[in-house]
């Protein structure tokens, strides 16, 4: 049971780290940003 809990915790931490790393990559390197001018926004 404890092992399952540990594995789950590591899995979740891995997801968080990957998601944060991907956000860095996607925004800074890939520049995947939906840009608008103020006037365009509703």
């Amino acid at each position, binding site marked *: 049971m*404890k092992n399952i*809990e540990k594995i*789950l*915790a590591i899995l*979740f*931490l891995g*997801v*968080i780290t990957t*998601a*944060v790393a*991907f*956000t*860095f990559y*996607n*925004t*800074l*390197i890939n*520049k*995947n*940003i*939906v*840009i*608008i*001018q*103020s*006037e365009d*926004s509703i």
Partner: protein
Amino acid sequence: MNLSLCPDAVPNLLMVFDIAIAPPLLLYSYVPIFILCVFFAWFIAKNDYGSIQSKYFLGITLSLAIWIALVLFQWIGAYLEVVHLAWQLLLLPEITIFISACFFSFTFLFKRDASNIYKNFSLLILAAVSLLLPTQVNINMFDLVNCEGVVGPAWRWIYIFELICIVIIVFIALRYLRTEDGRKERVKTVLFTTGLTYFLSIFWASNYFAETTKTYEINLIGPIGMFLFLGIISYMMVKFRVFKAKLFASQILVIVLWGLIAALLFIQSIDYIHIVVLCTLALVSIFGLSLIKSVKREIEQREKIELLAADLKIANDQLHELDRQKDELLGIVAHQLAKPITAIRWDLESLLDGDLGTLNEKQQEEAKTMRSQAVNLADLVSMILDVSRIQLGKIKLEPQPLDMNEFFKDILDVIEPSVKQKKLNFVKDMPKNLPTVLLDKRYTRMTIENLMTNAVKYTPDGGKVELVVKVVDGVMHGRVTDTGCGIPKEDQGKIFGKMYRATNVRNTVDGNGFGLYVAKGAIEGQGGKIWFESTEGKGTTFFFEIPMIEPAPVVPKT
């Protein structure tokens, strides 16, 4: 990496910030809190390393520090990609602050770690939220004109989640208060929960209203609630010893003042402010240092005293245990001695009665001396046994019908030879017909005989000894007065102590110091009381009261 500048932005601080676009209060509001959070996190981690509550507290402070750093990028970041990234990442530290606060509240109050199920559930929420970070559900678009993000629908749910966290913290505190009765713990709980919920509420409200009204200046007041919370935590550290850290209040005061005043330097619009700030900074540094030193000294002294008190308590407990063991041993030894002494006495009696053959005059004389010594020894052993029983609270009373007239006659017969020998003026004042009552004969006799023999023993030749006995409302009131040497004032508080003898007779009159101790134990064991009045050199009066029960009348058989 090729980054695009926001419109009109000029990086003039650390290559990534445009300080010129900062609102006047931005750095004043955020910088001291940032410094404070990092300092607090470092201090707790250093001093209370390994404790569970300090880990969660670290979670709150570090998350808030990261949150502040991201918000600073949002406000004055010069590059649009960096600003956008800050908007995207903000979600994660924001909910980490609230989740850590829930766990911190639980571990702080209940003094144990939360269940792994809750921890994994929290990690699951954080993982799910982190998956939203790069999506438009988190930051929908980026407004290039204002160089700011436009938040997506996820944030609505995040605000609801944060409110739920605040409710959970209040619920945890209420649950703890229901189980805890101690005033100190209750004060601690209320203080702690008020500080934490106050900080979280201000933080939540400033973010929510800034977001919904698009008036981001409201955001600037958000972290200020942290000042109060950290203030309360530092107060609790000194007052209640929460976390294993010390001298925190003074350090925090100095750092907060320093941070606030240093942040004033960033307010450009006030003339000559730098001079004022630098002077104040110097003063705060000097006074702050001396404050830290004095508090440190005081706390160290207090800790030393507490350690000494704890050692003293342990030593005291050990002494009590040794004393108890000693009494037990004394009881066992006396009990073992009693049997052979009785056997010796019987043999001597037989010898003197001629059962073992006729003794000549010399032999009879020697045998009588031996019998007298054996009787004395038997009395001493019996006294030691009584002392041991009283000390261990094992005194056993055996009430039996006692003719008080016979009882007092026997005692007076015993002391009469000494009274005559010392030519004392003995006065007896008691009713002619005392009733027959239920009393433990041995212990009552021991008490009164002890008082009488003491009175005779410590009164010089030709003095006066008086025995007064009255029976009022089923209680025997007695008084033994002598014109002896009296008890010195400094000894009066200890005279009923075991083996204690007054200093004015210690080296001049024989005695073992058990008599009054046994008398007191015997009288109190029967529900009575004993006390005295004495003037050194003039004499002593012992008073005693013993409740008496008349035995049921014997109905003759028909």
